[in-house]
């Protein structure tokens, strides 16, 4: 997937302070004036005092579900970052089973995770993201398997 990639980033500082953000040039061949999910709070990224999330993928579809907001809200309710991101991914999947999308998330305690939508043949089935902390001391790559309807 090289058409909808976006940098989304979540930072937890030493005091547990959360920030999140995005930067992108959007979808290739977009109609002039099109704005995607990236600059929309709760869609492209969201941060509050409990945690943060950021997403990448088909922004036109994803922004209708505020997946980053939903992910943070689920972390607030006690879900792990991975569980929370999975809930948000599946929420979109219910209406758009073939969309390309992934979410990274972290909470103020330093737990982190991610989820992505498993696409049909030739689509995305895994997603790689980066983590850097004093545990790794450098940016390390984590690869996850994408989820589908069979995920609990």
């Amino acid at each position, binding site marked *: 997937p*090289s*058409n909808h*990639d976006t*940098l*989304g*980033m979540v*930072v937890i*500082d*030493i005091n547990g*302070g959360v*920030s999140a*953000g*995005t*930067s*992108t*040039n*959007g*979808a*290739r*061949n*977009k*109609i*002039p*004036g*099109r704005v995607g999910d990236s*600059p*929309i*709070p709760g869609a*492209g*990224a*969201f*941060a*509050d005092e*409990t*945690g*943060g999330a*950021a997403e*990448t993928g088909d922004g*036109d579809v994803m922004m209708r579900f505020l997946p980053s907001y939903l992910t943070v809200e689920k972390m607030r309710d006690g879900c*792990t*970052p*991975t569980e929370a991101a999975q809930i948000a991914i599946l929420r979109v999947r219910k209406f758009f089973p073939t969309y390309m999308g*992934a979410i*990274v998330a*972290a909470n103020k305690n*330093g*737990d*982190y995770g*991610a989820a992505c939508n498993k696409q049909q043949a030739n689509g995305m089935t895994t997603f790689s*993201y*980066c*983590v*850097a*902390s*004093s545990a790794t001391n*450098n*940016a390390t*790559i*984590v*690869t996850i398997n994408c989820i589908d309807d069979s995920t609990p």
Partner: protein
Amino acid sequence: CSYAANLPLIVSTWANPGFRSASQNAWDFIKVNNGQGLGALVEGLVTCQTLQCDTTVGYGGSPDEDGETTLDALVMDGTNHQMGAVGALRRVKDAARVAWAVMNYTQHSLLVGDQATAFAVKMGFINESLTTNVSIKLHKDWLDNKCQPNFWQIIYPAQKNP
């Protein structure tokens, strides 16, 4: 599953070399500026803009139907719910820092299009073309391919090949 890591912590989408550099630079920044989470975030975002990660971040990529590259960016501080963002930013390369300027120097949250460009110029950013030989070729190939793929629907003549 999720994993507990020691703070501070950087988590970011994608892992191709440019994206990994963004994560690394954010980490390097926060390591020497403890407590500067937002600074690390901006540092990471700017890294990908400069490296034009996968030509999907920053100038010279994803040309629109007119061949122009326009940028979207957001920075959000969860501690006190501050944010700044730009949408369809034209002719300014550093979208993340313009978003940061919206957060810091205005009471607004989101500026768009040409007016966002005017704001950026007022803040000292350079007004310059975001087109490169790469984006020119992407656009030309798309025109040669009868404008496929595209994002239109239910319109005559049929805009999208099945």
